[in-house]
């Protein structure tokens, strides 16, 4: 019984989140519409408590507490992602508060779904059993399907939800198929058992390779890597903007976290094979994502392709990790992904926060043209967007550069200087479409005919989110050391 208590204690942050989610959904019907803000604040409060517990849960970076007979672990690696995911969820709720009201879809269960998705993500990042990871993935995805279709009056939102659900279910099936093959090989779904089974069977067993590819395809869908990216533009465009931000940041980060754990801890014996596979995927991902983003006129769609491209950059770190020599050889590559995604979270959240609250007479202004002349009307808003776009393009002194820097450093260390050069050439391509947003904001005059020029509707919570995002982008751009050393320490438990 006491052992069971220790297990529950290890999962305390997750439990708090799940209980709060249920509480929010239960309280929603009896909360008057005017007081739904309270549900959001309740969720934020739970997140803050959860964040505190997560930070205090581990007293040394080498600690690795496993719970429920090796289904989940609490280690520094999981803690890194949990801190990131909880912060992202909190900032998303704060962005959603004004956004959902403006869109007239302020429903209480929305916050419940964010928390449920978050609990799924937290299970994903700490799971060391393929089925546990799968369950986390499904919990996250199912919540996101519902949130995508939240705007019932918009056909595009419903279309996006349906598309996301069908393709997501399909990809889950492929992932599950890969898991079942691995179970057949190892007789267990635990990553440690799979690793030893692969060690005894040898890496060139075709069944092992097929299982690896199927699992890679399943995760490829979740992180939106080419050629499994088809859902991304439609879903990002159709979903309510706050949901898009949550998907683009948290879902991607959690999927990458689980992806890394499965492939390093479970399938590490195959790293020569999967690093080649990811090399191909990362090249096509960053090429296609960056090139197709150029022709987009809708900014959410453009950022969807940009998020595809960013997945390609993060995958370079993965390739470098696979190429690494020895036990610690993969560390810089894996740490670079964590740095990259943490920085990516700040700039993407900031960009989506601006987009969501750029209102054009009650409607969301989501065309790039809607930003025309913003610098003249609202210089501060335009300047923030300038910083986010600069950072997404990876231009110093913003944090986006630091993210790219560490990824490319890992690539060069793994003898992949040509890949870094190629990726940087496509970073120049990406600068074109990011700078186009800057160009319409600063260098075009708004057409006099427009009756209600789009403007940013400020609110205290939005200001807080933007302040956090811009602080993250600037501070990590100028002084990345704390983040870098935190990532380097956290990744050490991954083996």
């Amino acid at each position, binding site marked *: 019984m006491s052992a069971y208590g220790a297990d529950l204690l290890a999962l305390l942050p997750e439990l708090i989140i799940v209980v709060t989610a249920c509480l929010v959904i239960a309280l929603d019907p009896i909360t008057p519409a005017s007081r739904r803000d309270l549900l959001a604040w309740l969720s934020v409060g739970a997140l803050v408590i959860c964040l505190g517990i997560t930070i205090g849960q581990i007293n040394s970076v080498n600690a690795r507490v496993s719970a429920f007979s090796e289904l989940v672990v609490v280690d520094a690696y999981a803690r890194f992602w949990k801190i990131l995911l909880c912060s992202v969820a909190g900032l998303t709720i704060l962005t959603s508060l004004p956004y959902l009201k403006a869109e007239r879809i302020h429903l209480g269960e929305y916050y419940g779904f964010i928390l449920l998705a978050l609990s799924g993500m937290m299970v994903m990042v700490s799971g060391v059993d393929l089925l546990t990871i799968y369950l986390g993935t499904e919990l996250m995805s199912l919540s996101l399907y519902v949130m995508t279709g939240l705007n019932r009056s918009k056909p595009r939102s419903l279309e996006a939800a349906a598309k996301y659900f069908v393709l997501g279910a399909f990809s889950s099936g492929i992932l599950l198929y890969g898991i079942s093959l691995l179970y057949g090989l190892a007789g267990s779904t635990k990553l440690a058992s799979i690793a030893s089974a692969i060690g005894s069977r040898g890496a060139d067993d075709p069944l092992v390779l097929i299982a690896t590819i199927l699992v890679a395809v399943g995760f490829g869908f979740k992180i939106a890597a080419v050629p499994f990216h088809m859902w991304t533009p439609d879903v990002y465009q159709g979903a309510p903007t706050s949901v898009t931000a949550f998907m683009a940041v948290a879902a991607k980060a959690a999927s990458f976290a689980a992806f890394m754990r499965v492939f390093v801890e479970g399938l590490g014996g195959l790293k020569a094979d999967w690093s080649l596979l990811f090399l191909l995927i990362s090249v096509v991902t960053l090429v296609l994502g960056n090139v197709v983003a150029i022709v987009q006129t809708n900014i959410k769609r453009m950022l969807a392709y940009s998020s595809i491209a960013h997945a390609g950059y993060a995958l370079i770190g993965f390739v470098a990790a696979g190429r690494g020599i020895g036990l610690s050889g993969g560390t810089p590559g894996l740490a670079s992904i964590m740095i990259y995604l943490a920085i990516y979270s700040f700039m993407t959240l900031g960009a989506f926060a601006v987009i969501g609250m750029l209102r054009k007479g009650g409607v969301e202004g989501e065309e790039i043209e809607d930003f025309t002349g913003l610098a003249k009307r609202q210089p501060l808003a335009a300047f923030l967007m300038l910083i986010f776009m600069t950072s997404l393009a990876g*231009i110093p002194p913003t944090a986006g550069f630091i993210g790219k820097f560490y990824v490319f450093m890992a690539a060069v260390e793994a003898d992949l200087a040509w890949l870094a*050069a190629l990726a940087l050439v496509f970073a120049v391509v990406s*600068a074109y479409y990011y700078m186009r947003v800057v160009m319409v904001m600063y260098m075009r005059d708004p057409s006099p005919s427009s009756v209600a020029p789009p403007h940013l509707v400020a609110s205290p919570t939005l200001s807080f989110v933007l302040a956090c995002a811009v602080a993250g982008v600037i501070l990590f751009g100028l002084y990345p050391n704390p983040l870098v050393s935190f990532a380097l320490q956290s990744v050490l438990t991954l083996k």
Partner: protein
Amino acid sequence: MTSSFPWLSLILVLFVALDFVLFYVFWEAMLIPMYLLIGVWGGPNRLYAAIKFFLYTLAGSVLLLVAILVLYFYGGHTFDILALSQGTYPASLQMWLFLAFFAAFAVKVPMFPFHTWLPDAHVEAPTAGSVILASILLKMGTYGFLRFSLPMLPDASLSFTPLMVALSIIAIIYGAYMALAQVDLKKLIAYSSVSHMGFVTLGLFVLNQQGIEGAVLQMVNHGITTGGLFLCVGIIYERTHSRLIADNVGLATPMPQYATLLVIFALSSLGLPGTNSFVGEFLVLVGTFLWSKVATALASLGIILAATYLLWMIQRVVFGVPSPHHLPKLSDLNQRELATLVPLVVLVFWIGLYPNPLVSRMHQSVTNTIASMSRAKVAPTASPSAEETTESLLVGSREPLTAQGSSR
């Protein structure tokens, strides 16, 4: 959006950075403010010019980042520029690194095939943008060659010398020819910049004391003279709202002070003895003479062509006869304009007549650069310092130059 200017002043950090990543951060950080400067306040075609400038220079510099990272792993896991300059790298690696450096620096200078962004950017940029572009940003490229390519990659620098000299001479002659054909004053000066920066890269890559000292001096001179010329164009543009030579004819009568200063800057730009550019170009040519006499002859053509396009411009703009229907009321220079131009004129003559304070200051650094070059497998020959050469020539020494030994 005057916030662009403080942001731009961060470029200064670039020139003192001793950490390669810090250098790169500031190297790239100037892109955004310059992009805004051209794109927000520029001329009619500013959007095209701004994005062309931005993408061109960004594309050049991304390969620099890869080269920096490669150097980090080959040079003992450090970004310290001084430590990296001490290292020796395999010759084949040096070739690749040199090409990557070249992509970044040559675009910024700009050297011959990569110069096309410059006229567009200069013509569309506001006056302040043009001055910053010509006087500071272009120097980032030549500084890069001097700071990184030469000391870190001596073997590659040596083997690429013929190519670099050829590109420099093409830039000198081609830029001058293009300047000859321009009807827009700003474009004329932009192409003259290409030609003058050709002298700087020429001096750097003949790899001897005279050449490099001349190149560094010419970097300063170009900033003073071309900056002055761009200011002059900006002043006349404010009055006539045209930069075309045809619209600004015969300014000597209405604006005598302006005409005087414009003539001084033009004469300085064409390298008249007594002005700053003469000293720089002369040293570069002396250095080139030690490397190759043919190259010197070809480069000297650039000086003749510079005289042609600048004097022809002066003939029309200052002394031409304005068409009768075109008689605008032009006021001469005001206090503010005088205050910006007169210090530049002082510098023109100071460096032209007494360059020693500058030359002696750069002397030790250039000697060190040459010394670090001597790690190359085929060491460049040591030759008498430029200071001695200038002094001996200024005092009329009869010692023939050719006796000082030829290159390589």
